[in-house]
């Protein structure tokens, strides 16, 4: 199962040759850099009202994307909102993976009661449409960026756990694992050294996808008004302005950029996920068209 042995190039090299995935990665990295570096460089203040420019000012030299209903610079809010959205997406995905991988490993390797209860827990969580549970939990615990990350992260582990679980089941009875076990290696050592490396690759592909979903969930929540806490911005809360017909039809500069950012980011994350899948997958090489 070790991919390196069978293929001429390492997954890393394969990923680098994947032009689409690399483009997605570069865009995402650029986006991260812009979002985190531009505000301090340009001295942008996302939460200060410019009473001279007024509420809902049109784009100008001073405010490239105009101001919002509170007179705050929209470019600054777009960038700082991007920090929030990206951080929420990435950290929720990280929490999901950090939970899902060990739980999946335990369920698949130790089986028995572990398997039963972990998989039942996954069944319970997966019985709910995720947005329903997230909506209830965030609304009831009080909307804030931290709560959103926690709720999205804590509920997102099931998919990853199932992936790891399935793979662990096939790996655990393979001869070399049985051999290592017979040599008397401790359980945690086997799990870390022998099982984990063999089941982890699909997780790498699903993390970007999870991050994309988390960004979408966060934007839905913020749009519905149960998202992050004011005056903080996120891309979803910026699009909320477009619920007002006047803004939607008359001020595209207020909502088009955040909408484009969400779509672009999610697409890039999906592209990276696809690229990782192709690079790490030893059996099915790429689909003929992609």
């Amino acid at each position, binding site marked *: 199962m070790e991919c390196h042995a069978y293929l001429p190039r390492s997954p890393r090299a394969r990923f680098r040759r994947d032009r689409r995935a690399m483009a997605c990665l570069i865009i995402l990295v650029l986006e991260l850099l812009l979002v985190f570096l531009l505000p301090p460089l340009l001295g942008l203040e996302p*939460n200060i*009202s410019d009473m001279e420019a007024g509420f*809902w000012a049109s784009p100008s030299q001073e405010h490239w994307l105009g101001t919002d*209903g*509170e007179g705050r610079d929209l470019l600054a809010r777009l960038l700082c909102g991007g920090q929030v959205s990206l951080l929420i997406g990435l950290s929720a995905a990280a929490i999901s993976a950090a939970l899902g991988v060990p739980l999946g490993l335990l369920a698949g390797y130790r089986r028995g009661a572990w398997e039963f209860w972990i998989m039942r827990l996954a069944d319970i969580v997966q019985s709910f449409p995720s947005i329903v549970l997230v909506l209830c939990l965030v609304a009831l615990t009080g909307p804030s960026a931290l709560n959103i990350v926690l709720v999205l992260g804590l509920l997102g582990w099931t998919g990853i756990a199932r992936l790891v679980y399935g793979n662990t089941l096939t790996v655990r009875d393979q001869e070399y694992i049985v051999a290592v076990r017979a040599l008397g290696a401790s359980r945690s050592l086997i799990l870390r050294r022998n099982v984990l490396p063999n089941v982890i690759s699909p997780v790498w592909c699903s993390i970007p996808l999870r991050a994309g979903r988390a960004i979408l969930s966060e934007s839905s929540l913020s749009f519905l*008004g*149960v998202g992050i*806490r004011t005056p903080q911005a996120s891309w979803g809360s910026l699009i909320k302005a477009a619920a007002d*017909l006047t803004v939607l039809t008359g001020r595209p500069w207020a909502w088009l950029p955040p909408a484009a950012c969400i779509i672009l980011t999610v697409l890039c994350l999906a592209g990276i996920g696809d690229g990782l899948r192709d690079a790490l997958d030893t059996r099915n090489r790429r689909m003929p068209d992609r």
Partner: protein
Amino acid sequence: MKKLTALFLSLALLLTLAACGPEGKAADVVRYGMSNAWDTLMPYNSPSGSNYTRIVCDKIYDRLAYVHADGSLDPRGAASWESADDGMAVVFHLDEKAAFHDGTAVTAEHWADTIALMTNPDCPALGRSVFNVLAGTDDNGAAIQGEALGAEAVDEYTLKLTFKTPTTPEDFLLDRNREFYVLPTHLLDGTAPSEVMDLELWEAPVGSGPLKFVEEIPGSQLTLQANPDYHLGRPGFDTLVITVMDKSNLLPSLMAGDLDYYAFGGNLSVESAETARKGGIEVLEGTVPNSFYELMLNNQTISSSAIRRAIDLALDKDALCLHTAQGLGEPTATDLTPGTEYTSSLTWNRDVEGAKALLAEGGYDGSTYTLACTSNRSGLAALMQQQLAEADITVTIETVDSATLFSGMADGKYDMAIASHTPGALPLWFTESRFSEGNNIFHVSDLSPYTALIAQIKATSGGAERQALVDQLQELLAQERPFIPLWFGRTLHAQSPTVDNIDYPSSSFSNENVWEWTLK
């Protein structure tokens, strides 16, 4: 493949058909939107006690009078009224043509029985405290055993209400008319008071109002039918459909022709008004304030009145009002509604340096205050946060729903919160309920100075003497600053030009003249 193509084509055909189908509007339907749901159709059993429930019950049940936005009164269930017993009572002469939807005539007996039943301690009525002005009831509006209840049928069409303190008919009706409905008590005969609220009747209610109940999807939609025999005239349409919809949907729906009217205005912004006018929508500007914004303070956690006054000085009410009401409002220093009988000479101004001085005087230790607001006011809260920051007061904002906001204020969890109210015409419309033992939401440690003044104002009949007391109360409030009055706002109201004769402003008293509405 053929089958699929056929399916595809027929689906496409169906969709085009539907899209080009006739303009589905039946000519005699008025489509009425509102932003929040009513809860029940039993007016005395409403857990929320909200204006949304009141304005819906206003259609099905009849009230004593119709209150205009400026406080003037028109007959409704009662054709006329006069003061009696040296001002301790009011006699109502009921309209003899009024009848319930089942044909039974409305008599004074119905009114007296309604009040007797709802004040009966065995009856689990939720909104009972509305009756606590009547003689023979306690502070919660429950009848006191052995005392005569202040509601009696003098003859078939004469109802007499007796009060605890001298009350003019006008004061009573301005204050309580929106809460007094007549119930079909003839249908309740033989039901124990404790079981009245469980009756199926309230899910398909019979009232004596201008519209009859047809069908309800709780929380979403209510279909009502014109009552052809309404004693003030038959509404000029057949069906009224009330739908709960988000405010953001108001304008698109009006412009797409899916809506005729939106209750309580929906706070159309000045710019949206432009869009609306271009789309052929009627936009009316209110002449009477219909919203009062306040910053609620927690007097326990912000215990120094100097700090509370500093917060007041640090706020730029003009900018806040401009932001939220887009100039359609007047910043204020008091809770007295402009244009009403009693006024105050107090003024407000922003003074950041003065605020800083007061902060030093009050011993502000730089602690961070929590400001709660609902999500639609988060922009306003952010502006306040900045203005307070200029005076070195740090604030964090919690965006919560209104239930959490009020529970958090009541529990002392928040230091301040933004709230808005429908202003009343009486000088105590705001203060009386806010400064009472049962509802001390500002956490004032000693209510007695307020309650004493309030009681005095209530006991004084009017004129310069009452004005002097009102001034005294306002000065006390300015000194102590238990809450900060922000501004009185008027709103822009949008309605489709398909319905005539709407007296929209009066909805601030939770009544609407639906029987006079006509379709064009």
